[in-house]
């Protein structure tokens, strides 16, 4: 057996073609006869649609067709998981529009420019209706209703029984209202689809190229919604320029483009512009959390009460359910908490429908808990690190089942925290902070800590994997996950190379094509290595077992004596002359009528729970409100690390997005529902120039739930960094009496808070939540929405 490649920094084999401009993104696809679709979108957040006149557009130069909802007759639908069955969305608006950007008509033309010109001539007659943008205002009696038949804007919600008082033993209760702002997902590549109708000669009547995280799920949904034969539709996902949770399910535009391509009998492509992307792609986050945390005299947590108003956007976007599902599941975090009550309402607003964004409900839990812990440390007069230490779940308590029903598989939270403190030199940072405060320095130093745990590969995780060894000695991997930047081609090939001794450059990787891979769950929820990787690993193990039998027979040895040799053959252990190449083994297998291959459906008995500790250091200019990140130390534990370079990359990207939510990003609407940040000049995505160097490292606490010992790493960086950076900013201001600011911590907010602090007029960080929450049905009285179990 050669030395294992696992755990080493193997360069990503998928990068050269991306870096040299050979990406196969949907927009790069060239098919003869391709036509181009453009949507006419609502400029109003809430309005009756009286008429849509496409007659001029239909006759415009180059136009092949123009359609309204009445022409296409597509039923209202749910494109991913369902929050409220009554809030189905018509793919083209019928009767009403419910958010700015909702499509009302589609134009297809010979060129994208001709389609865009024709779209200008579509005349839509609207009667504006009052809109509701703020989810708390949506709960007020008399608020404009999005679906009148529901009788309220509550898409779903529950409250816990009041039989236990979380604060009965508390000597102190800390209370915080915290808004977790709506953000846009902003992948480099927006949504994109190209639909090619016609027999491909292999039994498919329709071939769909689509930028998605879940090609098999996309095919199944599309076929269900359009009543197509599943076997007659081939879905191919080429290179994808980022998903981050937003490319799950079938978008309204996908349904419309597929329908009109079939009607025209011509290939039709739609590639979202950035302006469309900012309003059409589901947004993420968007919660208002009311958190109360009780402490006893020893500063140990006695109980917690959380009440959440979750913004679902228009049509009850599935993201609204994340507060019902994953946020609630992870509300207990890394702490021993004896009692928890959790009430939640998912609310309809006249804004872009909510979906998932990197972390999908878990960052919200970590953010409100870790921010409240820092507030508590401030109020109790205890160092925030010490307060956490007193309440962390101890390493000998795993597996640990929480009050919310999560079974944490493994963990050592204090070890991650200790490592972060040591790397950052926490005590020295506190001394420097004190020095600046003593000197009245107008550039304040802030230190923020967050300890988090999250959940990956939930939802009965299962995945397909297959390994074939060919008669030339090479191998092919097929897997049902769908990498779009995560490095599976490298990581999964490393697994096969490790098991079989076949070199990386002789391993082919196939994914994301329903004609090539029979089934798959795609990539989301940081699931891929633990389920897809282990499926591939098990398939390789089965191939190896078969190879050993073949070799034993050929070499007249006992199977037990057969192993993979140092030079990548299969033979008798310790006898280099008695070994057979993989090519020969594949030939032997083929001649026996049973090729050397194995297919596996791997399932994991439960989700895994990655964790970590982040420490962020910022400077805040008290005269301008500017925040400058100085350092960010991340210690993330994703179980056993397979490729440290891939893990570091995931940490860096995640930290950047989490830091960005803390400091920059916010999707803002005016009171009428007009988006004010719908391009990248107004929506402040940061660049490398704004960030600091990131100090990413790991602890490794293997998961007992899969042979690789792996947990997910895709979202950890985001989950740990957001509260750490946020806490750092507030920490920098705490000596002025400032105890909380909602994200993003902008110069304007800091300026106003510093002013208010100087004037002694800081607002309270608490107020009672909307009364509607106390009228929600009790948990268990109504069925749980399907989308609460979204695993993305």
């Amino acid at each position, binding site marked *: 057996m050669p030395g294992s490649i696992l755990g080493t920094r193997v360069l990503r084999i998928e990068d050269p073609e991306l870096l040299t401009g050979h990406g196969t993104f949907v927009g790069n696809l060239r098919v003869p006869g391709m036509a181009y679709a453009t949507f006419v979108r609502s400029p109003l957040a809430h309005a009756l649609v009286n008429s849509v006149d496409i007659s001029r557009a239909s006759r415009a130069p180059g136009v092949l067709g123009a359609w309204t909802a009445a022409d296409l007759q597509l039923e209202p639908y749910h494109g991913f998981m369902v929050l409220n069955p009554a809030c189905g969305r018509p793919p083209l608006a019928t009767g009403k529009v419910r958010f700015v950007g909702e499509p009302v008509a589609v134009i297809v033309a010979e060129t994208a420019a001709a389609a865009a010109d024709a779209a*200008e001539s579509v005349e839509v007659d609207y009667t504006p209706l009052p809109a509701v943008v703020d989810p708390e205002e949506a709960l007020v009696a008399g608020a404009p209703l999005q679906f009148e038949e529901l009788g309220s804007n509550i898409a779903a919600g529950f409250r816990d029984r009041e039989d236990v008082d979380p604060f009965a033993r508390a000597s102190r209760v800390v209370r915080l209202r915290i808004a977790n702002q709506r953000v846009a997902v902003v992948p480099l590549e927006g949504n994109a689809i190209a639909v090619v109708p016609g027999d491909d000669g292999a039994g498919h009547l329709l071939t769909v190229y689509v930028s998605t995280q879940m090609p098999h799920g996309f095919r199944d949904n599309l076929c269900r919604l359009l009543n197509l034969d599943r076997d007659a539709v081939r879905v191919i996902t080429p290179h994808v320029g980022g998903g981050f949770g937003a490319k799950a399910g079938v978008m309204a535009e996908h349904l419309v483009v597929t329908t009109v391509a079939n009607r025209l009998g011509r290939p039709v492509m739609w590639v979202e512009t950035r302006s469309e992307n900012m309003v059409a792609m589901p947004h993420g986050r968007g919660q208002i959390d009311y958190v109360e945390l009780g402490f006893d005299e020893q500063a140990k947590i006695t109980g917690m009460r959380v009440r959440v108003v979750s913004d679902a956007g228009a049509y009850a976007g599935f993201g609204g359910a994340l507060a019902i599902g994953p946020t609630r599941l992870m509300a207990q975090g890394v702490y021993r908490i004896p009692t928890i009550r959790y009430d939640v309402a998912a609310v309809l607003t006249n804004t872009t429908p909510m979906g998932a964004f990197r972390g999908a409900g878990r960052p919200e839990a970590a953010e409100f808990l870790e921010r409240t812990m820092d507030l508590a440390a401030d109020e109790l007069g205890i160092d925030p690190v010490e307060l956490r230490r007193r309440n962390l779940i101890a390493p000998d308590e795993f597996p640990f089942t929480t009050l919310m029903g999560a079974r944490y598989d493994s963990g050592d939270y204090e070890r991650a925290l200790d490592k972060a403190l040591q790397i950052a030199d926490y005590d020295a940072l506190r001394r420097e902070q004190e020095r600046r405060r003593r000197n009245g320095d107008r550039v304040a130093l802030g230190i923020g800590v967050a300890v988090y745990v999250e959940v990956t590969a939930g939802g009965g995780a299962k995945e397909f994997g297959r390994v074939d060894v060919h008669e030339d000695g090479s191998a092919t991997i097929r897997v049902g996950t769908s990498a779009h930047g995560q490095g599976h081609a490298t990581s999964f090939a490393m697994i096969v190379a490790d098991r079989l001794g076949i070199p990386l450059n002789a391993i082919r990787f196939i994914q994301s094509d329903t004609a090539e891979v029979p089934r798959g769950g795609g990539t989301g929820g940081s699931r891929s290595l633990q389920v897809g990787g282990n499926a591939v690993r098990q398939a390789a193990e089965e191939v190896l077992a078969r190879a050993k039998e073949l070799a034993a027979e050929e070499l007249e040895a006992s199977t037990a004596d057969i192993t993979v040799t140092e030079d990548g053959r299969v033979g008798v252990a310790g006898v280099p002359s008695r070994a057979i190449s993989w090519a020969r083994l594949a030939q032997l297998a083929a001649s026996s009528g049973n090729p050397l291959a194995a297919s596996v459906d791997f399932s994991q008995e439960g989700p895994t729970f990655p964790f970590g500790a982040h420490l962020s250091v910022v400077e805040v200019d008290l*005269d301008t409100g500017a925040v400058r990140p100085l350092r960010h130390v991340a210690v993330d534990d994703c179980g056993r690390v397979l490729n440290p370079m891939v893990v570091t990359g995931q940490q860096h990207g995640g930290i950047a997005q989490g830091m960005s939510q803390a400091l*920059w990003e916010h999707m803002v609407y005016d009171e009428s529902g007009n988006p004010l*940040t719908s391009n990248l*000049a107004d929506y402040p995505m940061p660049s490398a120039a*704004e960030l600091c160097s990131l100090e990413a490292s790991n602890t490794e606490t293997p998961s007992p739930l899969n042979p690789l010992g792996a947990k997910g790493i895709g979202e950890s960086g985001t989950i740990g960094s957001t509260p750490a950076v946020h806490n750092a900013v507030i920490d920098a201001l705490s000596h002025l009496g400032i105890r909380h600011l909602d994200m993003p911590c*902008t*110069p304007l907010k800091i300026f*106003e808070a510093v002013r208010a602090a100087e004037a002694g007029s800081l607002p309270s960080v608490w107020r009672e939540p909307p009364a509607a929450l106390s009228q929600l049905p009790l948990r268990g009285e109504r069925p749980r929405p399907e989308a609460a179990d979204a695993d993305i």
Partner: protein
Amino acid sequence: MIPAPFDYVRVGSLDEAISALVEHGEDAKLLAGGHSLLPLMKLRLATPSVLIDIGPVRELSYVVDAGDHVAIGALTRHHDLHHDPVAVSQVPLLSMVAGKIGDPQVRHRGTIGGSLTHADPASDLPAAVLALGGTLVARGPAGERQIPADAFFSGFLESALAPDEVLTEIRVPKAVGGHAYQKFVRRAQDWAIVGSVVARVGDRVGVALVNMGPTPLRALAVEQALAEGASAAEAAERAAEGLEPPSDNNATAEFRRHLARVLTRRALAEAGV
């Protein structure tokens, strides 16, 4: 993200450009670096029927020492101005400000003439030219005229240029003394939320502000206070006097006034005033 249809004319000389402007009238727009105009066209907020591309008129790209002043061709790109040895040694403020515009792509395409004629109050170079007390040279069918920078910015995104005139040259006095540009942004590539430019030209101290009103403007109250012998800190307190800055997502008018004072104080200190 696709502009409305337009005609495209490419000219090789200044005279051709003026002729084209005369021919096409107010429907025509000059295209220099395109970094202000093209985004507006892609959003269909600007729909000129003719674009006159003056990119090939390389005779308008230069920085020369003209004795008592430095003359800059209107088509000089920000990157070139930032690195030009005459600019760096004779008018280092302008060179430094050019290096703080947008990002490298913008600086390699955008031109000083385009930036000034776009007259965006949030742009960097207009304030620098105002602080320096520059003069703008325009040419039209009736010949050439000089416009003081103070008289050039006539309204929001409006300049004193006639529709058939082309800005050809920017003249700024040599200013090798202390100078500073305090640019307040949330991201390096952004337009300034507020900016404050300080230039020492001989005995005079010029101060101009970015994004503090409908046009690029001078902080006249600050300049006057300094001329009357006030300390830099006292003068900076008057930075927002009489100004009506905009309110937006990034800043309220009140915050902008505060920033103008803070940034002007810092800029004056940095410039050694």
